């Protein structure tokens, strides 16, 4: 476990360095000195973008691991279960009503949207729902928030608003500034801290809700912590980078063997692996030869959907 964590950290450092260098303009790392004109690319574009990729990836990884542990559902993911689309709907409402002029209103709406969908999911889960019922509920929430978002687009007061919404919905880390970093970082840090504190309770839930309660887990408190933590991490991510799905689904699966399948011990490795995955993916979308840059959210879905199918095939017997 320790050694695997060290390897993850090392890979993360390499990926971050690569993310500073890679792009339309290759900037060698020795161009850092202020005399080199290319240093501005690093400091004002690549550095905030890289930090944001790390923050967004860690946030989505932890949120996915916490949701899977809490819902005892290996298919749970903030993207698939509607939390990201809830956050997006909140943000879209802010754009639609023109509130986005105030920098803090869009993230606030995104957080509220994420919190509302996560609370709905938790309410359904509170009554010991089965894997199937729960996955279906998540899918329904996704399509409902998706439909409302589409409604907002079709009713958009001006074409500019519609196009702003559409561009924004496709998650990306292109042209992000330090402002985005300063917005996302504290919210995500707080959210990750809240989720990390639920680790023992998530472990206890391995035995089901009744046994977890007999071990001293207080379901209401745990639910509040999960809703708050997921809302902060996912809301902040969606507010700064748009919808990036499947990270929260894939990452916990990949690191679970390292944590010997304990849901609480999966949280921190998921943060590291999530940061690694998003950073590497964000390097790759920059390197794909195309007229305009491939959107990160789209790339992640292209990668994640087959992974989801593979998981479904593996779970087929349990679900039947």
């Amino acid at each position, binding site marked *: 476990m320790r050694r695997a964590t060290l390897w993850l950290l090392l890979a993360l450092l390499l990926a971050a360095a690569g993310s500073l260098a890679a792009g339309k303009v290759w900037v060698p790392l020795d161009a850092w000195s202020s005399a080199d004109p290319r240093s501005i690319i690093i400091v004002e574009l690549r550095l905030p973008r890289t930090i944001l990729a790390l923050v967004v990836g860690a946030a989505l990884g932890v949120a996915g691991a916490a949701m899977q542990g809490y819902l005892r559902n290996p298919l749970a993911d903030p993207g698939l279960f509607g939390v990201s689309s809830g956050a997006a709907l909140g943000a879209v409402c802010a754009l639609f009503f023109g509130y986005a002029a105030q920098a803090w209103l869009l993230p606030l709406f995104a957080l509220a949207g994420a919190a509302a969908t996560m609370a709905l999911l938790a309410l359904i889960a509170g009554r010991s729902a089965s894997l199937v019922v729960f996955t279906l509920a998540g899918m329904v929430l996704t399509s409902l928030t998706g439909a409302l978002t589409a409604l907002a687009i079709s009713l958009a007061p001006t074409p500019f608003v519609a196009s702003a919404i559409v561009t924004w919905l496709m998650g990306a880390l292109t042209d992000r500034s330090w402002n985005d970093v300063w917005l996302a970082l504290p919210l995500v840090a707080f959210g990750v801290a809240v989720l990390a504190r639920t680790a023992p309770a998530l*472990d206890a839930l391995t*035995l089901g809700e009744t*046994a977890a309660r*007999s071990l001293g*887990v207080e379901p209401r408190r745990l639910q509040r912590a999960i809703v708050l933590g997921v809302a902060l991490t996912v809301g902040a991510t969606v507010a700064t980078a748009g919808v990036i799905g499947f990270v929260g689904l894939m990452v916990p699966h990949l690191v679970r063997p390292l944590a*010997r399948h304990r849901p609480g011990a999966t949280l921190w490795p998921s943060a590291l692996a999530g940061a690694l995955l998003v950073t590497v993916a964000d390097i790759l979308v920059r390197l794909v030869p195309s007229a305009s840059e491939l959107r990160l959210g789209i790339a992640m879905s292209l990668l994640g959907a087959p992974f989801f199918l593979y998981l479904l095939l593996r779970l087929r017997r349990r679900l039947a």
Partner: protein
Amino acid sequence: MSALETDRLTLSLGGRRVLEEVTLTLAPGRVTALLGPNGAGKSSLLACLAALRRPDAGAAALDGKDVATLPARERARRIGFLPQQADVHWDVDVRALVALGRLPWRGRGAADAADRAAVERALEATAMTALAERPVEQLSGGERARALLARVLAGEPEWLLADEPLASLDPAHQLDVGARLRAVATAGAGVVLVVHDLNLAARLADSVVLLRTGRVVAAGDTAAVLTPEAIAATYGVAVEVGVTARGERYIVPVGRV
């Protein structure tokens, strides 16, 4: 040691009375079996004793303190609960599963030497030490039941409440787990079991509580309470009671009353 009592405990679920003014005193150091037909309220009574259900009236109390108002962590340390469902949602290994029983003791901290020692004792007591590294999904039904029992034992609670811990086991494992529960009681803890099998109760329990439609029909020492008359009043069946060559009682239902 502490006494676990109920005082006019009354519980309704979905508009139906499942427990009606149940007043009991359970003594530590003994194995007590809760007996009764399906729907008599055995599991509900156990859940109230473990503060997993809140009664509508009356209370369950540990050392005179209402279990529902005990701090969750203190309650979890003193009362261990083994649910009937053998749920294990992730494919953890046996030792990690058993270590969950130490959560009330270690909270958010890492497991210390005392926690690890308690886990090893619990593995030893359930003959699971050799299987400690095995993933739960590779265990047989009996091994899984023993691992889950070890989980409760690892918490070393004053009271061990178990909902049908013997139901899914073959006779050999029933004897093993039964002997283990007996050892827990001998060591001083109170053991309360929901049991369906009259013979198991007769052999294992020091005292029994007979329940029917949420009311206590009879409670007391096993030999005194498990009479053909009381069984007829509880289950509506006629039984014959015999004694084996080794002096153990057996009960055979012969027909409806």
